[in-house]
């Protein structure tokens, strides 16, 4: 490893048998030092398979993953890199026969079914829907899918702070000081959460919360599990502890006395995942358990002006008297200002071009950040940058399958092949025309509409497609016989399929893709994008079907229909990782601010958009849950007030702004329009703080 500081080398060279707590703000080289320590352990003969690396989310494992793949590492075992969720799942799978009965599952001899967020939401919907009809949650106007996910979120929060799930409603109620009607809502939340948990025990279903619960209450105390963990792993590196959940900290606390070495890393000023249960306070309490305490202070990222900018912003955010701005500061914080949003985006694009083409900044050293990255902003800016010839990649972690035209086409074809579904999943001519257009090569939209109008009759609800030969000759000619021949191949295949007993939905998708849509003459022929999407769809259907436990059998046709309905209603988003994961990284990066913060990297230039938005600091509207009340740091019984809300908003804003600045080497540009994206005048805490900072800089400059 090269260019390590003396402090980093000191840490790396500490005796192997050390229990170390390393803290420091972002950019002080903590992870680099930890990677160096890992290499040193291996080079000094510690078997790699005895080393356990724990991270709060998989993106944060990247530096460790890269180094363990280095061909120059000596031969040996493999380092284990896991999140606490991954570890819990792995242990539950392996030791299920040891714990299932005592944990209270109704079929301990049958392996459990692990639920994804989506399949958990599906079962929650099954249980809660009948209650909604009975008037539960009647006082709320909330999309049912958000309602299901917030009840699940409550179960997760209870599990990760280690309280019984039966206390969720009580805790939420005791902190509430608004209208009494909400108390009834919390009772409903508790009832639904309890119902869900009971259902999981009855059918061996394991959502995230139950996996974590089992991990804490049944696996960790189990002597066989303890022995297996202690024999296998002797050395621990836990990074970004401040982003991890209290259960992780509890696990480490219990494990530390049995380990030969540990390196616990804490990012001062972090804790961005509080909404997901991260608990920096609980993480910091581990410091007392470590014999060596080290702090890194020197930033590898900041020069003096950048440090000055960070101090100025800190003062503006917290109403502290600011230091004098350095003369260079004006170039470190600049604005791109316009009255209207689209004009501002034009100027942002122009600025990025200048940075790359004239100032020689590499595209991957530029990030454009906003509190949320909605489709409209993503499209508008990506489009502008691409037109300017600037490589760009955007990050939204996932995208719902049903938003893709290819997937809608596959669903439409599935409905045609299962006409009995039409009663519950109607198909109209416009959708059918779009499906023809997307599948029959050489067909344009106008003729696709003509074809759909001529062969499909919605009102008879039989879903049958008429043969091409039955179309009036003049229309046949307009559509062309060449298209007619392709249409006939598709129609015949569907008709034959529909005449047979239904197969599993995934097999239907595979077969129609394999036997028709990828043959010459159809648009999916060697179409990689379509292939990727359909493969994702098949996987999603499979996961859904596999989540149905043997105790709740569903036939092929029923499970297929259930899947399609759930997908269309948005209960199952069937989200998939977009191909950005495989895209080249040499591009300007568009991302929500939190995503960038958790990518653990610094860049030369940051461009902040939507600074008037309250999304930079306000928590999401979640009437059924509360990330601060369902926390170990909240005193049970205390009432949550408007002052508390304001305090955490202010904390969040400071944390995010300072976190971003600590990850910026050279300059921040503020993209500002008087009227925001939706046409309203911009205001907000961040805007005010930036204005204050700019005023001081400008004043100082005019004085100087």
């Amino acid at each position, binding site marked *: 490893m090269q260019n390590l500081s003396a402090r980093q080398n000191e840490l790396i060279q500490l005796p192997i048998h050390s229990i170390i707590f390393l803290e420091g703000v972002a950019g002080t080289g903590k992870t680099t030092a930890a990677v160096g320590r890992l290499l040193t352990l291996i080079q000094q003969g510690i078997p790699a398979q005895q080393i356990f690396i724990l991270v709060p989310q998989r993106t944060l494992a990247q530096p460790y993953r890269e180094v363990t*793949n280095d061909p120059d590492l000596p031969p040996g075992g493999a380092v284990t890199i896991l999140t606490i969720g991954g570890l819990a799942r792995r242990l539950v799978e392996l030791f299920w026969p040891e714990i299932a009965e005592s944990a209270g599952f109704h079929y301990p001899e049958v392996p459990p079914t692990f639920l994804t967020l989506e399949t958990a939401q599906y079962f929650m919907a099954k249980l809660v829907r009948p209650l909604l009809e009975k008037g539960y949650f009647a006082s709320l106007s909330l999309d049912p899918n958000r309602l299901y996910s917030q009840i699940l979120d409550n179960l997760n929060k209870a599990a990760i702070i280690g309280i019984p799930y039966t206390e969720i409603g009580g805790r939420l109620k005791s902190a509430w000081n608004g209208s009494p009607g909400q108390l009834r809502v919390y009772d409903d939340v508790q009832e639904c959460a309890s119902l869900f948990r009971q259902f999981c025990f009855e059918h061996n279903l394991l959502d995230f919360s139950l996996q974590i619960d089992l991990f804490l209450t049944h696996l960790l105390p189990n002597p066989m599990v303890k022995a297996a963990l202690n024999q296998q792993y002797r050395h621990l590196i836990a990074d970004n502890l401040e982003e991890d959940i209290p259960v992780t900290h509890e696990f480490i606390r219990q494990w530390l006395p049995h380990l030969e070495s540990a390196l616990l890393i804490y990012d001062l000023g972090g804790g961005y995942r509080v909404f997901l249960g991260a608990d920096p306070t609980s993480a910091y309490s581990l410091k007392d358990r470590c014999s060596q305490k080290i702090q890194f202070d020197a930033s590898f990222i900041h020069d003096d002006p950048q440090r000055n900018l960070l101090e100025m912003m800190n003062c503006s955010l917290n109403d502290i008297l600011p230091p004098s701005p350095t003369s260079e500061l004006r170039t470190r914080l600049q604005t791109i200002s316009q009255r209207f949003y689209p004009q501002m985006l034009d100027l942002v694009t122009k600025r990025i071009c200048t940075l790359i083409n004239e100032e020689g900044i590499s595209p991957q050293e530029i990030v454009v950040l906003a509190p949320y990255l909605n489709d409209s902003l993503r499209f508008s800016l990506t489009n502008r940058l691409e037109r300017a010839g600037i490589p760009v990649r955007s990050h939204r972690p996932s995208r719902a399958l049903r938003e893709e035209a290819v997937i809608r086409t596959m669903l439409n074809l599935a409905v045609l092949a299962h006409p009995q579904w039409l009663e519950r999943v109607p198909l109209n001519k416009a959708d059918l025309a779009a499906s023809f257009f997307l599948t029959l090569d050489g067909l344009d939209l106008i003729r696709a509409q003509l074809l759909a109008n001529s062969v499909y009759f919605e009102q008879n609800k039989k879903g049958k497609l008429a043969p091409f030969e039955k179309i009036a000759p003049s229309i046949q000619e307009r559509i062309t016989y060449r298209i007619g021949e392709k249409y006939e191949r598709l129609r015949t295949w569907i008709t034959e399929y529909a005449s047979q007993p239904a197969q599993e939905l995934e097999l239907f998708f595979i077969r129609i893709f394999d036997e028709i849509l990828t043959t010459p003459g159809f648009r999916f022929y060697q179409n990689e994008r379509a292939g990727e999407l359909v493969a994702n769809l098949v996987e999603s259907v499979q996961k859904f079907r596999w989540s149905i436990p043997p105790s709740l059998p569903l036939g092929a046709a029923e499970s297929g229909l259930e899947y399609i309905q759930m997908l269309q209603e948005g209960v199952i988003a069937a989200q998939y990782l977009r191909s950005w994961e495989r895209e080249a990284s040499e591009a300007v990066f568009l991302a929500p601010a939190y995503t960038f913060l958790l990518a653990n990297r610094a860049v030369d230039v940051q461009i902040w958009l939507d600074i008037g938005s309250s999304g930079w600091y306000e928590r999401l509207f979640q009437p059924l849950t509360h990330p601060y009340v369902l926390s170990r740091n909240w005193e049970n019984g205390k009432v949550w007030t408007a002052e508390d809300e304001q305090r955490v908003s202010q904390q969040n804003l400071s944390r995010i702004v300072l976190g971003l600045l600590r990850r910026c080497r050279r300059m921040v540009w503020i993209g500002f329009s008087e009227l925001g994206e939706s046409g309203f005048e911009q205001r907000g805490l961040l805007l005010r703080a930036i204005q204050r900072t700019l005023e001081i800089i400008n004043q100082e400059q005019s004085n100087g």
Partner: protein
Amino acid sequence: MLKLPVDFTFNQSNLQDFLECPRRFYLGHVRRLLWPNREMSSESANQRRLQLGKTFHHLAQQKALGIADEKIQRQVATQSLEIQSWWQTFSEWWENSVNRDLNGDRYAETILTTGLSGSRLVAKYDLLVIHPEGDVTIFDWKTVTHPIPTKYLSQHVQSRVYPFVFSRAYAALLSGRKIAPEQVTMVYWFTADPFHPQRLTYHSRQYEVDEDYLIHLLTDILQRTDKDFPLTTNEKHCAHCVYRTYCDRRVSDKDEENRLDENDNPPLVFPEDWEQVSEINY
């Protein structure tokens, strides 16, 4: 020079893909192209076999971890008849072997890895037994329908990769103790013939031959460009390939039936893709 994904490592499964069809290797492991195919369907015979194999390996790992037989047996009783039958013979074989082949320190589902030709080569072992006298047995559970004769097994890339990687990386398990390749035996245990495992003994000469072979193979792959991964000329390899429609190598149902009748020529392909090592499981 080939640009591989940052987390790519070589293993017996992707090397076998390359040997059977360079194009399959390229599409699957370099481009990581997702392509829907019949093998994905749980109604396909291969997928079903894969699921059975996974269940069996999982149970074997639980047994090696020391979970009580009666607890595992209660799980087995809820599984398919095939699993029940496999497990019964496996348990009998295990009992008979405890004081012989299984005598020693046991490591289930262990990953070992070594650098080679500027890349990493990884092997995931179903079970490693370090015997008290210092010899080592590598066990690999095979749930294919027919046992595979030794002459075919010895040519399979897995039979080269596993003892070779072990001979390089054993120190990780043996705390610095040295062993010679002659002390390593690879045992393929077949559910289809449980009492006649196939044993392949290893030796120094074979280690050298394998080292040369693997260096050449990896170098050959790494030196190629994106255009140097042609389709196989042996279309039999396309029968179960996930990319057969992408490559326009469609197999009719009749071809499929004929292929399944060819018992005289046992397949060298082990459809057990859980052996593909996933370095990081979350």
